């Protein structure tokens, strides 16, 4: 916690200094504002301030008007959508292509590799998902996001290289086999068939040498790591950044100061459009946009990747046909998938660049993202019984979420936090669908 705070503060300071010149937002005011952003309970020494709550009346930054802030917000949302598109597209196409590569490595004879890969990633996500989530909570947002982007895409690129190696190796053995076939098998359909079968068998066996096994393990581990990191990045962006961004204008505009406190209202289940400027509408619009990107990518990315693979595959078949007679290309798997693997790797490199720049720009244009609230802070740093209902509500929710009562004492801390939330049942219902 201490290291987080000390590592986090210079980052935000440096960011503010660099931003000061060209931003539409008055940032120096924000630095002052952040100190009593916590509704009085955070002292000046408190290293991390939440942007969750509304600012005090009169803390208005005079440099930026509401339209400017809204414009900044819209710009940030566009960048967020762009980043999300690249993230989703690269992830979906990678997953799709990897399945095909793994099937091709067994020459479409076995689903063994596909199922082991599925098992590995599933286990990794189940076991490490919570750890990644708490990492998102504890770390400075930009550092976490950059780390996720770098690590994930690096893993994927390494894994595509492993795939490239494996596939070209496999293709090499196939071409040797084909040469043998064409030289030994003079004619006769049945003889060709048996030879083809033996070729597929030997290909599976030759794959089982030490370096191939090592590469396959590498693909499994890297793929699982990339999947976990991708989940972490998605959670960070979709669930955390978006919420902070939605409250950005509310936090910094005085027109809303007269309106009832947003958090209190929600906890009383009081629904209404007058809570804030229209942060809920903004939030739902953003959610809809991101979900649309999700769904379109699920359709588009496999289609494009499949088209790409078919393109490479056809060319391979064509060259094989020129060398050999027709069906040998089909028998050899006909695939020069290794170049498709390279293309997927390049897509991921492109996604890395785009996501990195987008997140950096968003982080700089929305200064609230620099302030972080720890769950430990929720528990520890509120010794005084504050008159503000916010704190009490927050304390209650966190206390309830970690209370070891009843059957919950058998669960892990993460599960207790999960069940302590109001939306737990709805979330479980969603997960069951």
């Amino acid at each position, binding site marked *: 916690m201490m290291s987080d705070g000390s590592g986090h503060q210079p980052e935000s300071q440096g960011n503010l200094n660099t931003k000061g010149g060209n931003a539409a937002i008055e940032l120096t005011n924000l630095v002052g504002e952040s100190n009593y952003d916590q509704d009085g309970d955070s002292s000046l020494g408190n290293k991390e301030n939440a942007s969750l709550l509304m600012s005090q009346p009169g803390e208005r930054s005079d440099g930026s008007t509401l339209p400017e802030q809204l414009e900044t917000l819209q710009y940030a949302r566009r960048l967020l959508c762009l980043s999300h598109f690249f993230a989703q597209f690269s992830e979906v196409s990678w997953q799709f292509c990897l399945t095909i590569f793994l099937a091709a490595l067994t020459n479409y004879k076995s689903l063994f590799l596909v199922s082991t890969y599925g098992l590995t990633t599933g286990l990794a996500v189940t076991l490490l998902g919570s750890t990644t989530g708490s990492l998102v909570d504890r770390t400075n947002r930009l550092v976490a996001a950059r780390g996720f982007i770098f690590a994930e895409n690096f893993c994927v690129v390494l894994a595509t290289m492993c795939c490239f190696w494996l596939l070209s190796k496999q293709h090499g053995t196939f071409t040797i086999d084909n040469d043998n076939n064409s030289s030994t098998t003079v004619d006769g359909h049945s003889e060709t068939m048996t030879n083809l079968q033996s070729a597929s068998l030997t290909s599976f066996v030759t794959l089982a040498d030490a370096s191939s096994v090592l590469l396959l393990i590498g693909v499994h581990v890297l793929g699982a790591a990339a999947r976990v990191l991708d989940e972490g990045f998605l959670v960070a962006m979709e669930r955390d950044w978006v919420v902070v961004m939605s409250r950005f204008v509310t936090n910094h505009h005085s027109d809303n100061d007269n309106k009832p406190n947003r958090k209190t209202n929600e906890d009383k289940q009081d629904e209404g459009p007058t809570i804030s400027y229209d942060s809920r509408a903004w939030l739902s619009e953003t959610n809809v946009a991101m979900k649309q990107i999700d769904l379109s990518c699920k359709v588009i990315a496999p289609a494009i990747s499949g088209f790409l693979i078919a393109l490479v595959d056809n060319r391979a078949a064509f060259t094989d046909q020129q060398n050999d007679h027709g069906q040998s290309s089909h028998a050899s798997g006909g695939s020069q998938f290794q170049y498709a693997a390279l293309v997927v790797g390049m897509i991921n490199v492109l996604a890395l660049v785009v996501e990195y720049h987008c997140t950096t720009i968003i982080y700089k244009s929305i200064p609230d993202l620099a302030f972080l609230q720890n769950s430990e802070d929720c528990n520890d740093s509120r010794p005084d019984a504050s008159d503000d209902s916010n704190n009490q509500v*927050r304390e209650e929710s966190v206390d309830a979420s970690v209370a070891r009562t009843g059957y919950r004492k058998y669960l892990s801390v993460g599960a207790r936090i999960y069940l302590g939330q109001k939306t737990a049942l709805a979330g479980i219902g969603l997960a069951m669908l």
Partner: protein
Amino acid sequence: MSRHLPWGVFFILLHTLLILLVRYLNALTFDAILTTYLVWRGMGFETIGIWRGISSAIGLLGTCVYHWSVNRMTLELTGMWSIIYEFLCLSLSYGSLFVDDNQASLIMLIAGICASRIGLWVYDIAVTQMMQEYIPDGIRGKRFHHHPFS
């Protein structure tokens, strides 16, 4: 503490089992299992592909429906109607098991699944937004996990 270890393991196992059951026993999506089932029922690959595309398009429509709905009623109400609607649609799919006519049965099954996509995504976004609004900052990452369905 070690006394509780078997119980903890038990809960983890139960949890995993539950997730797996729920994950693989539903035929909500046009996933591998449903595709296999439809092929087994004698459906062509082209038809399956076309319906898969249609169900994706309907899923995209669901996001627009959510937008329309949340502007007119509360988030909770949106979530409620969407999940009930989805339940009704899937009941239609379930009812297709008791129809003797193969063609009619398949139509019922697929229509139910395609129509339920709207409810699924509306519910998904509604719950996501509820989580975003109600959960305090510090525990958000721990609290969220990505939903398993595709």
